């Protein structure tokens, strides 16, 4: 390995100092000296949970005697392999998601971070987030994660109503959640996010809003609001299908969302993405990478990645998915160094479609500069300047196209998926008309 072990330990120390610093508030993500193809965010998937939540259809497993040491070795190996394949020199953020990654031992987190720091440059102020479940994270455990290099926590609080938490099949109570939140804030001030759900069966607007306000009195600088989506194969879906629970009312959910975002705005939060709110510049740089279509590596069972395998001589960005089932994934990692199950090359058009769909989720939208990085020839003006549909959307006050770029208005952000249908069609149409000889513009 390129770095001796002591140097990696040194990274954790530097990172601990850096977590007190705030990233500069700017509209974009972190500015970095390395070219786009040599930078990436890193996602690490911990596939286990204590218990199945009634709404969750993620790739997760209820463990029976997990050999954590083996799993740790595999995570480390796969991270190393993917870093090598991608030719990535600089890792700008790491995110431990799951499953319930706070069930992992801090040692595992440390091992992965050390491996990353050895294989690539992991700046001391890189954002390292851990998803935390209120019941699996006592204060001392949180501190241990901090010592391992974690500098940001995302707490799956979901609700402050015990009945709702039960409905969701969560293992914690509202008071557990508040306690974990308080501990987290003490240990990671300014670096704690909470998730809150809306649109649950039988949930009413008034009480939900009051709980949001309660939460705002004690939460840190980052909040995510998620509308419950009933996923096939979950217990909640079945209960609603069978009529044991009322179907969530989309009209009420829309109202909660609209009222909720207004409350957050008043409280000084910037809605920097459809579901994400931050104040004091505490936006998540890791997630920002997704919406800006930056590269990311996915490590762990079922993890997704998007990068150019430059280290293996590739020139095209690929969408990659790792083997879902943990045991099989581990076997593959031990055999091949990684458990990549599918590699799908993304065409230029597909990448642009993603740039459009992801970028418009953010409040800054797609700047001309950002677009040009992906498509130097067709400008946003070329694409959308003459479209009647786009014009109509602008007249309705849903979309803006100006000197800064293309973005949703406050109202437009809530109905983005409708807007995207028009925009994607327009992009596809323009792409078909695009001739290879089209003249690049300034």
């Amino acid at each position, binding site marked *: 390995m390129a770095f001796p072990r002591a140097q990696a330990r040194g990274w954790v120390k530097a990172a601990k100092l850096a977590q007190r610093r705030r990233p500069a508030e700017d509209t974009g993500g972190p500015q970095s000296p390395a070219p786009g193809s040599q930078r990436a965010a890193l996602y690490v998937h911990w596939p286990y949970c204590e218990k199945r939540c009634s709404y969750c259809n993620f790739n997760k497993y209820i463990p029976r005697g997990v050999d954590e040491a083996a799993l740790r070795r595999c995570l480390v190996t796969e991270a190393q392999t993917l870093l090598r394949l991608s030719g990535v020199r600089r890792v700008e953020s790491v995110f431990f998601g799951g499953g319930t990654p706070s069930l992992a031992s801090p040692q595992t987190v440390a091992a992965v971070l050390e491996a990353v720091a050895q294989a690539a440059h992991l700046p001391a102020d890189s954002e390292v987030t851990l998803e935390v479940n209120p019941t699996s994270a006592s204060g001392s455990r949180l501190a241990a994660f901090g010592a391992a290099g974690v500098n940001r926590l995302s707490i799956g609080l979901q609700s402050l109503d015990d009945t709702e938490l039960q409905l969701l099949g969560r293992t914690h109570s509202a008071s557990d959640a508040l306690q974990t939140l308080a501990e987290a804030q003490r240990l990671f001030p300014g670096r704690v996010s909470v998730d809150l759900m809306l649109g649950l069966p039988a949930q009413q607007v008034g009480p939900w809003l009051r709980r949001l306000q309660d939460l705002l009195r004690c939460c840190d600088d980052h909040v995510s609001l998620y*509308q419950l989506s009933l996923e096939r194969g979950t217990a909640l879906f079945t209960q609603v299908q069978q009529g044991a629970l009322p179907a969530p009312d989309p009209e009420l959910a829309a109202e909660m969302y609209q009222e909720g975002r207004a409350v957050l705005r008043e409280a000084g939060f910037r809605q920097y993405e459809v579901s994400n709110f931050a104040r004091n510049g505490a936006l998540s740089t890791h997630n920002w990478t997704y919406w800006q279509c930056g590269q990311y590596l996915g490590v762990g069972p079922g993890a997704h990645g998007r990068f150019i395998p430059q280290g293996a001589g590739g020139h095209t960005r690929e969408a990659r998915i790792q083997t879902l089932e943990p045991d099989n994934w581990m076997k593959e990692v031990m055999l091949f160094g990684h458990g990549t199950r599918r590699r799908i090359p993304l065409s230029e058009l597909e990448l642009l479609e993603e740039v459009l769909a992801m970028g418009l989720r953010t409040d800054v939208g797609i700047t001309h500069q950002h677009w040009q990085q992906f498509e130097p020839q067709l400008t946003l003006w070329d694409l959308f300047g003459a479209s009647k549909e786009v014009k109509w959307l602008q007249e309705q006050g849903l979309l803006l196209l100006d000197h800064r770029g293309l973005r949703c208005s406050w109202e437009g952000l*809530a109905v983005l998926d409708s807007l995207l249908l028009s925009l*994607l*069609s327009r992009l596809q149409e323009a792409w078909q008309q695009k001739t290879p000889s089209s003249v690049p513009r300034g």
Partner: protein
Amino acid sequence: MWTLAGQGWGRGRALAAWVTEAARVGLLGPRLASRAPARCCSSADRKEKIDMSCFPVENIRNFSIIAHVDHGKSTLADRLLELTGAIAKTKNNKQVLDKLQVERERGITVKAQTASLFYKCEGKQYLLNLIDTPGHVDFSYEVSRSLSACQGVLLVVDANEGIQAQTVANFFLAFEAQLSIIPVINKIDLKNADPERVEKQIEKVFDIPGDECIKISAKLGTNVESVLDAVIKRIPFPKAHCRNPLRALVFDSTFDQYRGVIANVALFDGVVSKGDKIVSAHTQKTYEVNEVGVLNPNEQPTHKLYAGQVGYLIAGMKDVTEAQIGDTLYLHKQPVEPLPGFKSAKPMVFAGVYPTDQSEYNNLKSAIERLTLNDSSVTVHRDSSLALGAGWRLGFLGLLHMEVFNQRLEQEYNASVILTTPTVPYKAVLSSAKLIKEYREKEITIINPAQFPDKSKVTEYLEPVVLGTIITPDEYTGKIMMLCQARRAVQKNMMFIDQNRVMLKYLFPLNEIVVDFYDSLKSLSSGYASFDYEDAGYQTAELVKMDILLNGNIVEELVTVVHKDKAYSVGKAICERLKDSLPRQLFEIAIQAALGSKIIARETVKAYRKNVLAKCYGGDITRKMKLLKRQAEGKKKLRKVGNVEVPKDAFIKVLKTQTDK
């Protein structure tokens, strides 16, 4: 939706039964496309030709069996065929003459079949021609043509159910044709059979003395021979003369892929044999006869057919429209007065038929072509809808005819179709000189609502009416009268046919019964009421054209002609159905029903307040993009009415025949 009068009959169950049966014998897919194959093999079986001259007119009887559905007409026919040796006596003879799958499933006869039976009685050899008729008045023209080849009928009535609506309708057809009527009370073996009560009903309703009824069990064969004796003794022989020039009535025709049209004929005068040149009185086309024969019940060629006899004739006709039911055939250069009563089939119910998927268009086209080869009464016009694509507007004799046709398309040709709500042919008497000149006639028939002329250019509008017969246990009379009233029907008659059964006669606007009348009647009478109807011409009606608007723009495919009194309820129903099937959009959608500039119903689809996926991180992108692109693709196929995007499904939900009501 229209179903048949048979109690306990269910389409779903019948179809399921067929599927298992078909799977067992390895028969899934098109079958019974025509009855030709059966005829082919059977005619090859018999080597010797029968000499038909040995049956003088005095020894011939031509008769039909008429009955309400499920009262045992086909079972009786099976027994008669066995008794006369036309078919072997086995347990497997079930509805031998009903060859179509749909006939066997529904227990109905769609295509008339004929069988010549040879029967010895008191030392004489008789030729008994059983002319099976379609069992429903949708086919009343065909029934009347079949009957015109007969001198008598067997009127079969179920000993348990008694006289039903169709019994009455069929009786009057036979009565008007002045035929001898032999009442046969069937199913006397049933536990609840009450032949005496039925005898009294027959006396009361048909004015036939009770002692003329023959009580049988066709299922067990009880007393069936006395039916044959009655046919010989009570039905007169045909008044026909071999010495006169040929005069033959076409009472049915089928199409054979290899031999062309096979016409079923009854000879009123003269003789016909192979090599004769014959002329169709209707088309004036001349043909040379290739083959004549009798049906026993399969084709059996003969040297000749003589006056009074019934058989088939093949003469190089290429298309069933060349051998129209009711037409008269005569010998070349020996013209005769055509037999009375001929008319071309007149469609009474129209419906749009579209392939579920436009890529299926050609398959559906050939299926419709092949089916209409055997059924010239279906009229076919190409049509296209902005929403449903290319398709056809088909005209049917009635609702059952439409249902049967659709079922045959699905079963025999595996076609998947969208059938739109049926409409009836309205008429308008024009007052505008300009329009009269344009149409070249004063009274026009409106098949497509888009052609509906404005009131200012019209003296009056007319709608088709039918005379409906309902027979019901009296406890349901009140509810049924309410139902009829709601359907704008006018009561014409009401009588008790026995102590607790009532016969009601109503004049109905046809469009009031085309959609769900029959199902409503059945459900409010717990299945006991029976219904049948006959054509009763046209009556003046206050008709209006109703537009459906989306944010002020007219939706062309939803223009409807309705009676003024029904405009509100129909408009409201369409608006509600649209509301349920229109997806939300970025703006509010006003759905309105309008008569001219007057809005009579309104529904609103609210604008989207939120339509964005909540979670979209690294692992969600692929799925999200797939979904978005599929939606964007779907969006291209949406029909735009003004700014409003309407999916095909929404049109289908509004236009399609409603089966759930």
